């Protein structure tokens, strides 16, 4: 039995690795298709053809595409992410700080959004059809329909421009005090929570309702178990798989999909770094960011799958 689980888990991880390799090919091919290269972009429009050729040569951009790709891949395997074309700083240094910033923001958002979302999802399922359920659902649909740049801009207008409680730009530099953390993270976290929790709430609610419809819940009810006991001890453990899946999908957004939040609040995270890298055709940096996003996504999905496999014996077959 355990061997079977181990086999399933290992094959999931194997699939993840193959996906990573495929993604690196796709990203490389996509950047090759973009017009212009880093030499041209660094020199700008005033560049003479000779100057571009000279710079290209000194940056070893003249090598065939697959040689450059291979060089990067080999570097990656030996733990070297390479140096940024644009400013010759080690990619690891550029990515490190920015990734940490994004992870900090993601962590705070997770801590705020996930418990609230689960609580609302489970309670609305418990009191399905009640005024409470309908109110929460209406709000959730309302929030999900508003694009995040709108939420972010409104938040800035209200809290920064009118009330002047919070800064309009967030550098996440003053984290020495609790108040500093609150000030730096409040608006980005509110905006991101709005975006990701709506989905979690609706999926959790649906999953719990599904299990509440099953015959064993009816049986538990007939045996006289209390409603809270039924939901927490009978229904919820069986709904964990789909709930974790919904949570994982939502959280994966916190890594690569936060570009709008990072832009509006000028937060120095990794999504903005990747957009920068694309506009300068900085291949080592684009590749590294793409791999990190892919890795984050795959990790979350794989964890969700493994949890589902472990929590549901039927999936092990």
């Amino acid at each position: 039995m355990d061997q079977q689980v181990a086999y399933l888990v290992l094959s999931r991880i194997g699939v993840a690795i193959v996906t990573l390799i495929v993604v690196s090919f796709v990203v490389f091919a996509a950047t090759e298709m973009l017009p212009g290269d880093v030499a041209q972009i660094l020199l700008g429009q005033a560049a003479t053809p000779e100057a571009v050729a000279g710079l290209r040569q000194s940056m070893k951009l003249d090598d065939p595409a697959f040689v450059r790709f291979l060089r990067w891949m080999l570097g990656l395997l030996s733990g070297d992410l390479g140096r940024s074309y644009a400013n010759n700083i080690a990619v690891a240094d550029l990515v490190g700080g920015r990734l940490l910033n994004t992870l900090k923001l993601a962590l705070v958002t997770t801590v705020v959004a996930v418990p609230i979302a689960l609580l609302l999802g489970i309670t609305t399922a418990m009191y399905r059809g009640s005024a409470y359920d309908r109110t929460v659902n209406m709000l959730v649909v309302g929030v999900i329909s508003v694009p995040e740049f709108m939420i972010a801009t409104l938040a800035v207008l209200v809290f920064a421009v009118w009330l002047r409680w919070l800064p309009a730009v967030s550098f996440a530099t003053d984290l020495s005090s609790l108040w500093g953390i609150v000030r730096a993270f409040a608006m980005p976290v509110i905006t991101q929570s709005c975006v990701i929790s709506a989905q979690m709430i609706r999926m959790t609610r649906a999953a719990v309702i599904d299990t509440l419809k099953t015959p064993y819940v009816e049986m538990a009810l007939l045996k006289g178990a209390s409603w809270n006991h039924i939901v927490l001890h009978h229904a919820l453990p069986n709904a964990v798989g789909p709930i974790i899946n919904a949570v994982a999908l939502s959280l994966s957004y916190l890594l690569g999909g936060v570009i709008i939040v990072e832009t509006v609040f000028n937060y120095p995270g990794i999504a903005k770094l990747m957009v920068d890298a694309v506009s300068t055709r900085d291949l080592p940096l684009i590749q590294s960011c793409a791999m990190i996003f892919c890795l984050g996504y795959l990790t979350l999905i794989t964890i969700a799958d493994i949890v589902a496999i472990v929590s549901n014996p039927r999936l092990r077959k």
Partner: protein
Amino acid sequence: MSNRDVTNWTWTDQTALEDALRRGASRRDLMRMLVAGGVSLAAGNILLGGAGEALAQTPTKGGHMKAAGWSSSTADTLDPAKASLSTDYVRCCAYYNRLTFMEEDGSIKMELAESIESRDATVWTVKLKSGVTFHNGKTFTSADVVFSLMRHLDPAVGSKVNSIAKQIVGVKAVDALTAEIRLAAANADLPTILAMHHFMIIAEGTTDFSNANGTGAFRSKVFEPGVRSIGERNENYFKPQKANLDSFEYFAIPDDSARVNALLSGDIQIASSIKPQSIRLAESRPGIVLSKTTSGNYTNLNARLDMTPGDKSDFVEGLKFLLNRQAIQRSALRGLAEIANDQPIPPTNPYFNADLKPRAFDPDKAKALFQKAGVLNQTIPIVASEAASSSIDMAMIVQQAGAGIGMKFDIQRVPSDGYWSKYWLKAPVHFGNINPRPTPDILFSLLYASDAPWNESQFKSAKFDRMLLEARGQLDFAKRKAIYNEMQVMVANEAGTAIPVFISNVDAISDKVKGLRANPLGGQMGYAFAEYVWLQR
């Protein structure tokens, strides 16, 4: 404030008044205006007094200022040769110095140089200031000048001004404080060229630009490419009037409304280059002032003369008559532009030809010309993009005017990314966007000479090329101006580029920021504001 006698007098009015004074309105003019507006003579005097006081203030030392530009990326650099964005220019101006400096009236002052002289405009002798030190303590000598200028010629450096620097054939150190610059051919503009941001002086042998070692008014304390930079006042600065600010922080907020919001919430004191659409929002708030510079930036419509339909000269001329300059100025740019006359030299430049009038909007004439060219019933594609600022609005204005005379234009809106390498200079009819350049010679050599790298319309004229060379070596201002005047007429009539307006740059600033002046090199005082402004307490 001492203006209790006046009702409805707001901060906005006060700043408008100060602004008018700053731009040179006379006291008498303003007084007449105020009285006409229902303000009593006595109250008017008090108001004007207050505004004058605010202007006459002497700089105060201290404070930390935060300013935001509009773009920055991981390609941000401390290497002046590679500087390409406003954020880079701001850093360069703060940490380094140039040999010469361009003043707000376009005149050239000496900065690190004591004097720059030449008899034939080919060999130039540069005497340097003594007692200047770099941030790391090294003394500034002619060897630094030689190194800083010569590196622009090395393709591996990737200098942005490689094409301009090419005319320098040699720089040598005569003695510790004298350098000699030898040009391939006479060029009287050299002192102006040396005032460009890329020609900042760095210490001899510098190859590592992870930190800035310059002679400038600030030392680089924090530099995170694509995130932010912080500079601290250099107490050993060679100019007796050192920087006023203790420190300044510069970063980019690319989103236009986010930048204005940050200013409105008091997080930053300068929001540079805001779009015409956001101006009303900023203007209406107390404590916000607008600083406007029209320095020669323009978006132009190009028809390539070597492709259809631009190869028919009547089509090009018709296009110039169909360009409704007033409409572009008023609606596309909300009044923040000056009407231009199809040639690239702005009215602020001493060589501007004031006799060359802009073409009037004349659809009938345009129709007749299009008919003559045989294009009236065809559909002509125009390529526009966000990359060339306001070009989409301009294209729509042209399209509208065309519809009125039965001329169909198909606007092809293409993405910003890749615009400059894929469409610009290539499509038969497309928009371009050109940043201000300090001299007519640079503009003409870059854009209109037969071998110009950015010859947007493929305009070729042997006569024009000869005149360009002749003017370049001419040290006599009047003779030079006469040649440039004629060249402007040639460009306006013969080239396939239509320049409808010069676009103003508008920086929104907190009224606590004082000492900011306009500069022809660009917004934010030609990006050199950090050294000159102060924060009012």
